[in-house]
């Protein structure tokens, strides 16, 4: 390649991203027909600034509006469930597992701002509706170097539509699970001031996968989402954005209890607010400043009553708020872009499960350097989080890419991530008098134990007491390597290899036994685990109308201490037939629970180019462990696995004037498993439409 041409290309790219500041609208509704013409996707998550994929040495998976529209997916979990290399796991809400790491290690952002309110580490994906989502960016691998704690496994950034034009869109979808879902988006924009208001109301009767037990698998709920956005161009070089998002959800609960037999019912109310604003200013063609401020609250209110006795079964309130100011400077000089940023995070939690209102605040700073030189691209970043009560963290990351020729490039990277113990792991003070146990956060533990000790209520310590009161962040070391092929005919292939080593993993375990036999649980840094694997994706254009997409992920996730114990010959199991005790070998060990070794997906897409579109998709996940049954606390026996399964989807769409009609069936083969995969509903047909009124020319573009 000619150096001059390259320089020119770089120059054009630079101009492009200067012009496309953080929130520039990219594809309007106009592109819905001819959806398979690939346009450069703008990716924000990888650098906190708008970049196209070929400007980045990090592969970012993007689920675009068209892909979302083509499915019956209404909530974030519905669409993520259909992606390979991502698992949804159901544990106190539906969370996401990336590269074999649990939901608490993935940061979920809306327009770059983090959501708050996790239950047991899981941020419930059902809180996010997709109606006004422009694209979902999935950045796998550590992103703590930009996003701090919780981004150890990666980041999912939900980018919502930007206000543009003057139009009203009404959308509705009806299925046995959505009776109905109604959405409307109003856009009212002039040249300088742009506004939009999005509303979504979803009412669901829930579903029941197991008729034998009382109550439904998912009980009825309804949810209202409101999202208002505003942007103003203040002169040529300054832009101001603001948005407010509110989600309120009411979830019914009903289940049976014994001793004495009764039925428990009640509602869980959940409300969240996200208010965010940012100001971007270009001082000159080299220097750009961005100021951001976001404020989030999450409120949960649960009241469960026993119907027979009228007694209160559970009365629980939880309130969390989060404030984050941030400043970022971008300095562009020739083929170098340098970022400098600083910010702070302030967080507060109130709940009866904490002794007092808990707060923490910490400042952070980050820097990032992008360097393009010939066929090389380098992106390096580092962030320092200065915590008060726990160890501070420095998170570096380095990514490289080399363009071999027009079609082929490869690259790799290394990074470190961290996750600070959350409020629950630090401050929880919760006693379950019915089941007879107590859970204490790591900070609470020493004081509570001292009190109990003074009253001679401690029978025995179950772990070394010197570990108490000294909890550390969980830390990771990760590497990845990728090769990308992009043919001119629209054929693509990518192979990605990854490895994450995590140390100081926080585990819940019994630490002491009281004289009445009750156990006291707490959180300690214990485990060291690794996850490694290969992800392969391929896309083949069979004809102008047909496209085939394939993907596969192999995952190996294991606990290093278990491997060590196996090598020492101190992990046993009993053969259930012969009752003979044998030593476990590495081959018998199935790794971490809830991880599938193989995941694959096949997708066929059709576009008539005359307004008809269709797709069929099948995702497969191999067996995964759910719990230890034979008493050695590791995954090894065949009956400790949930068998592998597949889920099929089909959909059809028709574009006609200002209308879009769609019909489809999710979970075509009606796979279900009430016990271990409650988040997968049975076979679900759906019907939907969209109608857009454009106030400029009364025409759907």
């Amino acid at each position, binding site marked *: 390649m000619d150096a001059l041409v390259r320089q020119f290309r770089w120059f054009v790219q630079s101009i492009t991203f200067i012009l496309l500041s953080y929130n520039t609208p990219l594809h309007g509704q106009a592109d819905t027909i001819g959806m398979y013409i690939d346009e450069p996707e703008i990716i924000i998550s990888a650098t906190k600034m708008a970049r196209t994929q070929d400007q980045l040495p990090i592969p970012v998976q993007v689920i675009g509006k068209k892909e979302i529209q083509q499915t019956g997916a209404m909530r974030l979990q519905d669409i993520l469930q259909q992606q390979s290399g991502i698992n949804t796991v159901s544990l106190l809400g539906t969370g996401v597992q990336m590269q074999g790491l649990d939901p608490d290690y993935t940061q979920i952002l809306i327009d770059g701002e983090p959501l708050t309110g996790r239950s047991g580490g899981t941020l419930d994906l059902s809180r996010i509706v997709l109606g006004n989502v422009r694209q979902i960016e999935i950045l796998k691998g550590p992103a703590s170097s930009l996003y701090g704690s919780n981004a150890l496994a990666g980041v999912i950034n939900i980018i919502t539509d930007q206000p543009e034009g003057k139009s009203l869109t009404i959308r509705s979808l009806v299925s046995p699970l959505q009776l109905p879902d109604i959405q409307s988006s109003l856009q009212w924009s002039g040249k300088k001031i742009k506004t939009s208001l999005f509303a979504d109301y979803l009412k669901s009767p829930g579903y029941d996968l197991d008729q034998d037990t009382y109550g439904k698998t998912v009980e009825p709920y309804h949810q209202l989402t409101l999202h208002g956005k505003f942007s103003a161009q203040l002169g040529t070089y300054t832009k101001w954005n603001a948005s407010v998002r509110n989600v309120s959800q009411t979830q019914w609960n009903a289940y049976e209890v*014994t*001793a*004495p037999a009764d039925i428990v019912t009640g509602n869980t109310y959940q409300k969240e607010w996200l208010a965010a604003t940012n100001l971007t200013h270009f001082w000159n063609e080299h220097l750009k400043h961005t100021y951001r401020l976001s404020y989030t609250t999450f409120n949960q209110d649960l009241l469960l009553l026993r119907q027979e006795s009228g007694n209160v079964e559970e009365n629980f309130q939880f309130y969390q708020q989060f404030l984050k100011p941030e400043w970022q400077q971008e300095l562009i000089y020739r083929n170098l872009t340098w970022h400098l940023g600083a910010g702070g995070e302030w967080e507060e939690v109130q709940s009866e499960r904490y002794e007092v209102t808990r707060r923490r605040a910490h400042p952070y700073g980050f820097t990032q350097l992008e360097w393009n030189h010939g066929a090389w691209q380098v992106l390096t970043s580092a962030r320092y989080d200065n915590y008060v009560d726990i160890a501070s963290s420095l998170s570096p990351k380095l990514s490289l890419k080399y363009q071999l020729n027009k079609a082929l490039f490869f690259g790799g990277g290394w990074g470190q991530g961290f996750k600070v113990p959350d409020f629950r792991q630090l401050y929880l003070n919760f006693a379950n008098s019915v089941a007879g146990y107590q859970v204490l956060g790591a900070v609470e533990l020493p004081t509570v134990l001292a009190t109990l000790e003074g009253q001679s209520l401690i*029978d*025995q310590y179950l772990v070394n007491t010197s570990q108490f009161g000294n909890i550390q962040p969980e830390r990771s070391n990760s590497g990845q390597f990728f090769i990308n092929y992009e043919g001119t005919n629209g054929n693509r292939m990518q192979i990605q290899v990854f490895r994450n080593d995590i140390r100081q993993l926080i585990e819940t375990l019994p630490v002491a*036994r009281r*004289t009445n*036999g009750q*156990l006291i649980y707490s959180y300690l840094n214990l485990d060291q685990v690794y996850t490694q694997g290969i992800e392969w994706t391929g896309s083949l254009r069979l004809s102008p109308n047909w496209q085939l997409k394939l993907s596969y992920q192999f995952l190996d996730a294991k606990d290093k201490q278990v491997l060590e114990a196996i090598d020492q010959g*101190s*992990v*046993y*199991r*009993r053969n*259930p*037939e012969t*009752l003979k*005790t*044998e*030593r476990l070998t590495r081959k018998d060990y199935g790794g971490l629970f809830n991880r599938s070794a193989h995941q694959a997906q096949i997708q066929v897409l059709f576009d008539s180019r005359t307004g008809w579109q269709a797709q069929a998709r099948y995702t497969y996940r191999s067996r995964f462990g759910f*719990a*230890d*049954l*034979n*008493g*050695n*606390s590791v995954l090894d026996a065949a*009956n400790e696995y949930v068998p592998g399964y597949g889920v099929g989807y089909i959909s059809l769409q028709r574009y006609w004037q200002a209308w879009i009609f769609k019909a489809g069936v999710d979970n075509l083969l009606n796979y279900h498993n009430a016990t271990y995969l409650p988040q997968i509903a049975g076979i679900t047909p759906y019907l939907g439409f969209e109608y857009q009124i454009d106030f400029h020319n009364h025409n759907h573009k």
Partner: protein
Amino acid sequence: MTKNTFWVLTLVALGFAACKKEETVTPSEPLTVETINNLFAPNDEINRETGEIIKENNFVKFSFSAKDTVSDDSWDLAFKGTKILVNGGTGSENITRTGHAGAIIKDGIFEEMLTAPEDSEYRQDSGTDLAIPTGSNNGWYVYNDAAYLITPIAGKVIFVRTHDDKYAKVEILSYYKDAPANPDAFTDQAATFTFRYIYQEDGSKNLQ
């Protein structure tokens, strides 16, 4: 070539020597492994609504020398539900401990553990702290609260000093009647022990 042959032969010779040496150490006939099937030791019957004991059951007392259950004070271990007592120490249970028994749980494979531990290692019952601790993952079993199953932990060998200072090792194999491969907490009779043991009657610590 010749050099290699030399070394191979040397190794073979050493191997033989080692084997011989071991053989000379083996003192006597190996002890027989006894298996007790379906020792039924039901827990007290409890009113699930109030937690009140409706019917109190007796501990089922077992003696290694008798190879069977006994009714007198010559017992070594006593079973009731998941609780296992030793005839030594103190406790609030409705049973008389007249002996000198003790126990200690060790990790390993039953066949490979050939000698009883030193006397200082044995624990006796003392109040709620039993020589063979109760509780899930605390002593000999683990409780699965999803399937409501009690499973003896593999690789746990209970060494017992008997009431009259003899030694034995015990491995509990099942908590359900007829030791089913896949027990069902709702259909299989619980508190029904299957265990195997080796008992050394000569008072030595050899358990081979």
